[in-house]
């Protein structure tokens, strides 16, 4: 009798065995190797030439480099001046729209592996729901924090801001993607004003279609109730009953 038959149900490190109170040698060194790999992964840059199935516009935060990004989240939340100029030159949109922004965040592997396939699902679902994309393009911002969507929203004034961002890498999940939704993103909002769908990574986390399904539910409810954040609960499962 052992834990082996249970290991299929989770990536969690269960049934490791023990020697005294300690981990067996192989379990310890395996953990140590994966930590080393995760530390190395943080430093990997994002290739902005990446094709994601929709026209893109590259913008930049105030962050200087990766080290600056880690230590100065305030800079990662602010759009730099030349990027603001670019946004001011875009035509104003008065009708309902969803702004799509993507950033590597803390894991470039997340956007490299999942951004294109996830966006394909999301764009198709938005089209089905008759919800237009702001300026028919996605804005790519390397080294951004979630709050940067407010700076973009301040200028473009979308109904909903969607930030798709690489999450902090875990040992077993170096490439997990998250989506943050904000109703009418603008300066002065906080994380309590946003809804989050996290752990988007097929096989072990949410599939692209599950994540898109939840996102569409939240976008529709957010538009209907004119709110986002803690007062908007993810009740997408009710649609399945």
């Amino acid at each position: 009798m052992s834990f082996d038959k249970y290991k299929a149900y989770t990536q969690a490190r269960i049934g490791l065995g023990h020697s005294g109170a300690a981990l067996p040698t192989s379990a310890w060194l395996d953990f140590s190797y994966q930590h080393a790999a995760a530390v190395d992964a943080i430093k990997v840059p994002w290739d902005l030439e990446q094709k994601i199935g929709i026209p893109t516009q590259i913008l930049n935060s105030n962050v200087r480099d990766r080290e600056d990004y880690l230590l100065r989240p305030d800079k990662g939340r602010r759009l730099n001046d030349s990027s603001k100029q670019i946004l001011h030159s875009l035509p104003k949109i008065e009708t309902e729209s969803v702004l799509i922004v993507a950033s590597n965040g803390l894991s470039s592997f997340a956007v490299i592996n999942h951004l294109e396939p996830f966006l394909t699902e999301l764009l198709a679902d938005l089209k089905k729901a008759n919800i237009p994309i702001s300026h028919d393009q996605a804005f790519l911002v390397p080294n951004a924090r979630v709050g940067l969507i407010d700076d973009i929203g301040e200028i473009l004034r979308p109904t909903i801001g969607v930030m798709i961002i690489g999450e902090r890498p875990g040992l077993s999940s170096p490439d997990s993607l998250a989506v943050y939704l904000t109703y009418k993103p603008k300066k002065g909002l906080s994380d309590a004003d946003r809804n989050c769908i996290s752990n988007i990574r097929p096989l072990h986390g949410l599939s692209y279609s599950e994540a898109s399904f939840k996102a569409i539910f939240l976008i529709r409810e957010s538009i209907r109730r004119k709110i986002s954040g803690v007062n908007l609960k993810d009740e997408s499962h009710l649609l399945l009953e």
Partner: protein
Amino acid sequence: MGYKIIVGDKTYKFSSLVDLMARATPLRSADQLAGIAASTQSERVAAQMCLADLSLKVFLEEEMISAKNDEVTRLIQKQFDAEAFKKISHHTVGSFREWLLSYSTLTNDLISIKWALTPEMVAAVSKIMRNQDLIAVAQKCEVITKFRNTLGLKGHIGVRLQPNHPTDDWKGIAVSILDGLVLGAGDAVIGINPASDNPKNVDTLLKLIDELRIKLEIPTQSCILTHVTTQIELMKKGSPLDLVFQSIAGTEATNKTFGINLAMIKEAHEMALDLKRGTIGSNVMYFETGQGSALSAGGHHGVDAQTCETRAYAVAREFSPLLVNTVVGFIGPEYLYDGKQIIRAGLEDHFCGKLLGIPMGCDVCYTNHAEADQNDMDVLLTLLGVAGCSYIMGVPGADDIMLNYQSTSFHDALYLRSTLGLKPAPEFLFWLEKMKIMDKNLQITKKNLNLLEHMNYEL
């Protein structure tokens, strides 16, 4: 009001109590990010010297965050016990440190002044204490709480069993719970951070733990760490909810970004008390905190991260919680840069919480983008074990696959128990022995997998 001190041929000036406290704080990236840290190491120590000379009464006279704009300050003022303060009112911060450390100051002395202390006083004294001071005084404190078992007794340490799963898959969660149980974890709480806060999902998880707990007759409690409003909703619908969880912070502005205020916590607290699910006690709240949250939320009012954190303990103690823990290294390197800063903050939080009378535990943890690793965690874990920490986390293999950070493992808890002789909650230890999971020497027995046979868990 300004403060100054002359050290040698140098004069150091500080513009206010807020400025002095920030500059006296041992180095951490959060205060550097906020632009309020000391500019040199000498200035930092000079600020500590200046702080040591301040009377404790100064903290009653100069508000660090105005009561007008902040309900936490108003709560702190309401909690203050002027009568009890008489016992320590003659102290400066420096002589108060010595009083705390003196041989003749014992557990009951510390308990008798807990309402005479404001969080700002406690934060101040912690800033002039070195790590061994924080450990030595915390070890004298004792904060006992009860729900279905007894937590916080001296010579004991609890473990929160944290069986998170990235999609809240119930089978994945169930097998992690079983893994924790056969390794002796779970007396503090079986507590899940859900990936989704949708109420039906949370209800399902509550029922999962409740059924398991009843079937195996485990003397422990459960909690799903979701937003307090979701839990209020579920209590109204009759979900089997033991403990109400909420993340809290030390300023009204920060709590607002968490979508909470004191009235909301009070409402949830009263509802949970009415459920009367605790068998031997009625501590029904579980709070988490962490240095840097106020700065991260833009709600710090220029006050240093550690003082903001300590103010959160005033919020916690208002509701007689079963459990409170700082999630010390979770927030990332922009707030606590490396192992050294995380270790210091963990010891500060534990000391400050205990002195203010809350059952302080610690999520000894780090993220992959911080300059820290398992060795740093071993150091903090061991120090907290010596300091008498109420409980730590137990995560399978120390790797939380939902929250993407590294905490302490079931094995780490076993290490602490066997090397320091720290026992699980008495009721839980009785159960572990009955189930032949743990023996009298606090060692895992070879028969521990009997639990799996016993369960014959069909998935």
